[in-house]
């Protein structure tokens, strides 16, 4: 039996303030959710290993994800570029209950790929627990994810909906 290879990969959480980046990471790593809003300053580092199966449903590889939970980026200055440098992937998060947060995503994706051209992206439409699923117009999100050849998953850090799946999808792309 072959040894499972463990790869360490840096993943950045990007998006506007209050969209739930920290909540998604905490739900994924510690399975906790807090209603309180606490602004992140700089970058908070988390780690979580995820084991991926190959096509034969056997353990293929293990990825040690180094999650960089980043503060809201107002300006892509030198400090930010230093922080996102070397990332293999990013989760771009927006808040379904504040659709203006969706507008920032494309800029974030573009700037992130300028620094890390070969990295992979996943979009998270977060806080589904606060909106009516029936009124969601997914076309615009799908358009963006198609543009970046990736997935856009509807998530909720509160209920845990799609949180594990979203990180697994990204891990499989890395």
């Amino acid at each position, binding site marked *: 039996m072959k040894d499972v290879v463990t790869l360490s*990969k840096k993943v950045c959480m990007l998006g506007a303030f209050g969209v739930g980046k920290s909540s998604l990471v905490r739900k994924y790593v510690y399975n906790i959710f807090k209603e309180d809003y606490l*602004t992140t300053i700089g970058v*908070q580092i988390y780690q979580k290993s995820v084991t991926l199966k190959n096509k034969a449903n056997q353990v293929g590889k293990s990825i040690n994800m180094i999650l*960089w939970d980043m503060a809201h980026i107002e300006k892509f200055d030198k400090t930010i570029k230093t922080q996102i440098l070397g990332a293999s992937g990013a989760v771009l998060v927006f808040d379904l209950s504040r659709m203006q947060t969706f507008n920032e995503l494309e800029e974030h994706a573009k700037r992130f790929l300028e620094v890390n051209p070969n990295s992979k992206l996943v979009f998270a439409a977060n806080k589904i627990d*606060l909106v009516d699923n029936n009124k969601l117009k997914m076309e615009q999100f799908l358009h963006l994810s198609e543009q970046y050849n990736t997935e856009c998953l509807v998530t909720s850090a509160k209920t845990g909906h799609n949180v594990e799946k979203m990180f697994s999808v990204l891990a499989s792309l890395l």
Partner: protein
Amino acid sequence: MQEFFEQILREKKLSCAIFDHDLVLQDWSKFLHQYCSIRIANKKIHTIWQVFPELVGMEEVVESILKQQTKKHDIEKINKYTATGKLRYYTLTLLPLADPRTGYIQLVCLIADTTTETAYEQEIQQQKYEILMLQSNLAKYGNHSSIGILGNSEKIIHVREFIKRLANVKNTTVLLQGKSGTGKNLVARAIHETSLTADGPFVEINCASIPATLLESEIFGYEKGAFTNALNSKNGLLEIADGGTFFLDEIGELPLSLQSKFLSFLEYKKFRRLGSTQENTVNVRIIAATNKDLKKAVENDEFREDLFYRLNVVATFLPDLHELGDDVIILAEHFINVYAYDFRKKIRGLTPSAREKLMAYSWPGNVRELRNVIERAIIFADGDRLDDKDLLLQEISPKPASMPGDISAIPDSGLSIAEMEKRFFFNAIRKAKGNQTKAAKLLGLSLDKFRYRMKKYNLDIKNSDGVETDIK
């Protein structure tokens, strides 16, 4: 690491770790464990990626430093929870350092603790983003129409039109009349916010909530020594409202003694502070509101006639909620959105039976009562829509306008005690569904006495329509 060197590092809130050319940890300062992800043991081999996983992905940068192609690399504002659960902020600096014995280049990771400074920044950013979050929520839930008055009924359209018409009219006094909870305050704010003086202050006072003796000094201000304990001069609310709007809620409660001074101000836009001989001039729009019938108050000598006419230049009546038809549902759904968001509940709208219940209710407390009912319902409801059982209403009372048998409604022409008694009988018969024994019991009368009075008032128990016609 040598003790004196440790002391210097500690003094400057620094820690450090030194890695050899193969990126294995060689030496470290005592407090390094506060910033790294693993427990460091003397006899173990620790790589830089284990000690500082935040450097994963920066292999090229690390290599460049070891080759001395890069002199320094900083990563600012990293934060981590320590093993004791304390959040620490730090800047990680990577530097090349030649080993004095071998001459090989080593990698120094210098950690500068910035927890105290960054904690201040965190507080400021927290406040900033909380305000921005509130603003975006307000934009979403606070202003469904341009002036924040919801509804499509004719009466609400009239109110909105009234506000719009005032937008370009400078400083005209406005009188808002309507029952408690009909939104007089909201309309006053809407007038202010759409007016030419929207940038000025909006100052309000509730004339019923301040003792009559203090009201004059609150509105007009006072000079030092004007009365006992007037140790300093104080601006009145009129002065504070200069350039904006002064809203007097419950103007009907303004004491008669103060009404003449207020009238004089309305006429000449001038006033004197208490204890002053000097006249002050302010430029304010006055909006007054009342749930009292001011005309009646004038008749009863409780309100000055000249002040009433001075206030009544531009006036409107705000409708009761039960007069607004389907607007009840529009407002209810608005409050559902607001409170569902506030209480983080996924409740979206009303079931048909809940709608029916809301439409059937008379809403004596008007919009304020509706808001409270929805707030309570959102807190306790479990489903994804509010059901009729979630809506706790005082009672399903008949709508006043459509029920001639309503005891509390006194027509303008007046009502005699005999007629009043007749109405009680009518209601008792209706409540007892024509059962005389039950109706008599409801009124606390024996059956004989009940029948005697029925005959006296010529009420026909068999024909309720006839009764209704009779008492109109």
